[in-house]
């Protein structure tokens, strides 16, 4: 079968599966109808499209997937290592796409509103749901919309300042092969509020699965949102996520994105400064090994004057892994005095790993300061020598410097337990990479 018929066949069977009589939240039913309409004439993306030219969907198409009828059996001890003590009392947990009241703890929400989408009815859901990442954006967004069965809705009321993090935990049980999970996440902050959200995707067992997620973020006027996303799912699975954020007047949004898991993963993020003086920070770290492929595509959009954005992407590759980073900074004609800078750096640890990078500037205003830098290479020989001259073995020195390369992103994660956890993962991987040599 050719790749094309393969992909058509896959799509057709996926659309059939989405008609299975499994309840969908009433707030998303309208969006799902729109997605279905859109998908009637749509095809899965191919390498002929600019947005997909560096990555193929083959690992996804090798399997068929089904929305599970129920969640796998997971108990609290199974996920204890994923729990963040700082966020205790503010955790919403999903297992295989289903809300798990037993594994959630919402005892200390204060005035913050955090609910599973399934409990919302048409009138009390966020009115803008589906407007920041509309189903018609592209095929993958439409699919994620259509497949969606559950999700999280987080609303921070105006003026509320919550220093303690809120945790959205998505667990894959791996109980069955070929599970399809499609969470939809809504996060909004009211004017002058402040909050930190951690969104983690974890797996208790390695298995073939497909996750199609949509995260919509509305950062209100003069509010400040720190958003941390960690994807450490099954290394046999596929993960596609569209994350779209709209920034209000003088809103500050920080997104730190860590990619560790997935055979094939794609994170497609857009941050849209629809009002004056947006302030966005976007960090990313992809730590890949084996046959992992991870594609990060970001768009930082400045529409109004006096915006500022900073982006930093780090990639560390081992085995025959493949990382893609495409980062667009777009400055519309009205966005004068924009100050935007992007840097992307890749570290190749093995001869079979590879990186595709496409940093892109599209500037339509003349009074702006925009820069990007991209570098791909190895550890600095001078630094290695310096460490060795201090008595550190070469492999230790390499592990140390590799860890330091990642640490620049991890250091900025404001939650102690999560930071330590991630540092341990990175350290484990960098040492393993060295010991193989």
């Amino acid at each position, binding site marked *: 079968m050719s790749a094309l018929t393969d992909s058509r066949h896959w799509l057709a069977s996926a659309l059939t599966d989405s008609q299975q009589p499994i309840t969908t939240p009433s707030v998303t039913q309208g969006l799902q109808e729109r997605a279905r309409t859109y998908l009637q004439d749509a095809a899965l993306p191919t390498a002929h499209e*600019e947005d997909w030219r560096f990555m193929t969907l083959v690992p996804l198409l090798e399997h068929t997937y089904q929305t599970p009828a129920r969640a796998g059996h997971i108990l609290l001890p199974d996920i204890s290592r994923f729990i963040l003590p700082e966020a205790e009392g503010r955790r919403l947990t999903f297992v295989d796409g289903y809300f798990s009241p037993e594994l959630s703890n919402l005892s200390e929400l204060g005035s913050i509103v955090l609910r599973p989408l399934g409990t919302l009815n048409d009138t009390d859901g966020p009115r803008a749901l589906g407007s920041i990442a509309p189903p018609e954006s592209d095929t993958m967004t439409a699919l994620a919309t259509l497949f969606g069965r559950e999700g999280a809705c987080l609303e921070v009321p105006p003026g509320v300042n919550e220093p303690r993090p809120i945790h959205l935990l998505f667990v894959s049980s791996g109980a069955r092969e070929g599970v399809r999970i499609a969470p939809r996440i809504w996060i909004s902050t009211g004017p002058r509020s402040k909050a930190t959200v951690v969104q983690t995707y974890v797996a208790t067992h390695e298995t073939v699965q497909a996750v199609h997620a949509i995260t919509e973020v509305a950062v209100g006027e003069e509010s400040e949102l720190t958003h941390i996303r960690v994807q450490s799912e099954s290394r046999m699975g596929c993960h596609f996520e569209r994350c779209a954020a709209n920034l209000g007047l003088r809103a500050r949004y920080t997104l730190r994105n860590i990619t560790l898991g997935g055979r094939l993963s794609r994170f497609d993020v857009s941050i849209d400064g629809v009002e004056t003086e947006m302030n966005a920070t976007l960090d990313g770290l992809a730590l890949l090994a084996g046959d992992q492929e991870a594609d990060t595509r970001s768009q930082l959009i400045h529409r109004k004057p006096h915006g500022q954005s900073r982006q930093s992407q780090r990639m560390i590759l081992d085995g025959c892994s493949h990382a893609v980073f495409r980062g667009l900074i777009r400055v519309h*004609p009205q966005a004068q005095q924009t100050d935007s800078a992007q840097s992307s750096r*890749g570290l*190749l*640890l*093995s*001869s*079979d*790993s*590879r*990186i*595709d*990078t*496409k*940093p*892109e*500037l*599209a*500037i*339509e*205003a*003349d*009074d*702006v*300061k*925009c*820069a*990007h*830098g*991209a*570098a*791909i*290479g*190895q550890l600095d020989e001078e630094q290695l020598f310096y460490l060795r001259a201090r008595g550190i073995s070469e492999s230790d020195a390499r592990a140390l410097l590799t860890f330091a390369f990642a640490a620049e992103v991890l250091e900025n994660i404001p939650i102690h337990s999560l930071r330590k956890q991630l540092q341990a993962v990175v350290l484990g991987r960098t040492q393993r990479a060295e010991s193989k040599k």
Partner: protein
Amino acid sequence: MSIQVEKVINRPYEAGFVTPIEAEMLPKGLNEDVVRMISAKKGEPDWLLDFRLRAYRHWLTMTEPHWAHATYPPIDYQDIVYYSAPKQKKKLESIDEVDPELIRTFEKLGIPLHEQKMLANVAVDVVFDSVSVTTTFKEKLKAAGVIFCSFSEAVRDYPELVKKYLGSVVPYTDNYFAALNSAVFSDGSFCFVPRGVTCPMELSTYFRINTEESGQFERTLIVCEDGAKVSYLEGCTAPKFDTNQLHAAVVELVALDDADIKYSTVQNWYAGDENGVGGIYNFVTKRGLCKGKRSKISWTQVETGSAITWKYPSCILLGEESVGEFYSVALTNNCQQADTGTKMIHIGPRTRSTIISKGISAGRSKNTYRGLVQVGPKARQARNYSQCDSMLIGQSCAADTVPYIRVQNDSAKVEHEATTSKIGADQMFYFAQRGIGAEEAIAMIINGFCKDVFTQLPMEFAVEATKLLGLKLENSVG
């Protein structure tokens, strides 16, 4: 922009006149017979006709690409004249037999054809519409062992060399416009520098489009054998017509072991008027093959003309330790669109490349840098450094930077940097407060911005290029 910066662009395009000369033209349109007629007119051998026909048939199966950041109405390929040549009574033996009208034309453009009037160290091949009119200093070059002549002559006199290298860097299957060129190319320049020879003078080709309906499809082939060295420059102009002319050239460079080719372009095709009417569509394929060890190919371009520019002079770095360079200034004003950049394909070990690109957009123009740096699995310890800077002048223009970087081995180092800057009102005021007027201030800023590229041009042309940019920018900053 607040003040003077709008007052200082738009001196008339000085090369915009038409030469009243009788031309021999094929009727408009393209089919197999036209391809055969072009070949027959030039008395070509069968193998070349064959090459053209294969290219033509392949072209028919292709579709015009539209990924560049440029918008234009569809091109009617049947509305183009594919062969146009000034009528000459007989074959020319010397410059004295060239039509005086043509000599006057080139003198007006600053290209005197009499050897005694020329820059002493530059040999020129002059191409008028579809044919080469004359090549100067041929004898002097021949004495040094360098072959420099029109493409047609090369086919006649050195068929084996042409056969060996034609299409070896840019095969006719490469892209839509390269296929079209391969089918209908009319003339161009050929240069061959044998083993160990350093070409004693700068070589140059001057391209002139004169006929309104004609396209220009020239073909340039430069080969440097082991240890040979050459510096080559091309210049181009066209009259002002309110229709668009298609220019689809192919340039192939081959550098063997230790060879060194420097290729410079000052492109000043007619850009269309301030409303975007007329101008040249400059859709060009330029590629160099660093075939030998330690070979080097360096592209320098100053792009100021054309309604649309779509070109990516590239280097295939095959030989170990070979070096590719790309230095570019692209200036767009009014409604011009430029989508230009380079590809550096690292295949051999320890290959190195440098990219310095400076884009300046003014008026309502759009200026895109698009580049590819690819490091293959065998290109151990390959190095690339790229610097792409954009400058915006005024509020209606746009600058895009689209670099593609692909690294497939762990010993390579690739670095890319890009910035965007402006000529701001505050800078202009600072200059003014020191007594420096708007024109000089802009000239200084632009020169400073482009310095790294201008220093790469042969001396005679660096001055030319600086002047050209100054002319083009007058009245754009304000």
